[in-house]
């Protein structure tokens, strides 16, 4: 009851934010309001008990997406182009579609009802079988890592393809510094930005440790590889923001990032092939060790490591593609 009230309140704030995003003409403002939007929808997910989704939405939506939007806006103009013709046909179509969707929601089952179709067929099977097969508390990770590992392989490939696509479009293979160096070390600049740099440098190791905790704790609580990859990438992005692009590239070069990205996917696929070699299907972990539960847990750990590597490499490659291109001007 109480979480319904909270959710309704936050959803109202969400509507206000969405209206503000559409209304504003400055794209910087829109990017920041989009960050607020992600934070609030992540809170709603949390109130609906979907912890893994909330963590992913916060890490990727509020953190990485905002940074990437701002990096893209730094390369282009930040005022929206004014559209001069009226779009009444589009308005009619969107209004009609919205009315149809709202009408369709009247037929949905009660929220959280036990006899809803979504709770009946596969969900109850997963809940029962996880205790028998895999024996880990977090059923979401069990489904993601073992029962539907093939779909997760597809997601990893999608992330990798996105990174490759961005790298092709922006084609930043080498960071060329312009003749005048960024004025980070002039008198006033250093004095005013010393505190964030010191505190940021202090905090980065802890963010990395927390990212690793989220990665390996995914079997027991909310967490997993996608969230951990985003958090570790955020730590490196913080380093790049504070210390400058060239030092960030020196710390973790682009070549290493591409190896991480591709290597994670290869690790995932190799686990599947090992499953075949040992006599089962692709991505069947049951034959790794004698004990069925241990095999599944080790299999999930290995593929989550692969996913974490790929997500970190891909997000950092995309960030450096944007940031390094901005340096060339």
């Amino acid at each position, binding site marked *: 009851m109480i979480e319904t009230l909270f959710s309704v309140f936050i959803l109202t704030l969400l509507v206000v934010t969405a209206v503000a995003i559409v209304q504003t003409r400055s794209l910087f403002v829109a990017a920041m309001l989009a960050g607020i939007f992600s934070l609030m929808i992540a809170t709603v997910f949390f109130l609906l008990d979907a912890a893994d989704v909330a963590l992913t939405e916060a890490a990727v939506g509020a953190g990485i997406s905002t940074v990437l939007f701002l990096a893209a806006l730094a390369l282009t103009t930040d005022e929206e182009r004014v559209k001069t013709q009226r779009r009444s046909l589009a308005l009619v179509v969107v209004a009609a579609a919205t009315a149809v969707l709202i009408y369709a929601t009247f037929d949905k089952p009660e929220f959280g009802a036990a006899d809803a179709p979504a709770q009946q067929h596969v969900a109850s099977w997963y809940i029962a079988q996880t205790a028998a097969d895999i024996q880990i508390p977090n059923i979401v990770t069990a489904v993601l890592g073992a029962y539907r590992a093939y779909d997760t392989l597809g997601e990893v490939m999608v992330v990798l393809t996105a990174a490759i696509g961005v790298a092709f479009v922006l084609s930043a293979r080498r960071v060329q510094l312009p003749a005048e160096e960024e004025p980070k070390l002039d008198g*006033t600049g250093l004095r*005013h*930005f010393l*505190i*964030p740099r010191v*505190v*940021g440098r*202090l*905090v980065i190791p*802890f963010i990395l440790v927390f990212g690793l905790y989220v990665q390996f704790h995914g079997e027991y609580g909310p967490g997993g590889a996608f969230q951990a990859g985003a958090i570790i990438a955020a730590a490196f992005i913080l380093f790049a923001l504070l210390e400058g692009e060239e030092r960030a590239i020196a710390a973790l070069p682009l070549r290493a990032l591409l190896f991480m990205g591709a290597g994670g996917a290869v690790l995932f696929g190799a686990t599947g092939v090992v499953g075949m070699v040992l006599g089962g299907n692709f991505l069947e972990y049951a034959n790794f060790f004698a004990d069925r539960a241990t095999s599944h847990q080790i299999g999930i750990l290995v593929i989550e490591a692969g996913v974490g590597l790929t997500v970190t490499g891909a997000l950092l490659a995309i960030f450096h593609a944007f940031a390094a291109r901005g340096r060339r001007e």
Partner: protein
Amino acid sequence: MQLIVDGVSWVLLTAGGAFVLIGGIGVVRMPSFYTRMHAMSLTDTMGAVLVLFGIMLQAGFTLAALKLVAILLFLLFTGPTAANALASSALLSGLRPGTDGKIAATDKPA
């Protein structure tokens, strides 16, 4: 014993909530950017400290209390830093505080 812990926790939580609410009202009602900055940063950190201490007393000596300590330390370190960075950035970009002795209606760009 439990009653004392509950009582102290209740006091801390209420005080933290009051700080947070005061901060929110301050951010909306204060007339210029730097005054809003002042309202936000102080009440933010103090409210967070009080609320998290209040919850920590309820949690006892569990892993959850350790995580709350981690959150508290992180907010203590990064809250004031973010406020400092924001204020320095605004000052360096030319946003001037009201300088005529009265509280300015808005901030004047350089």
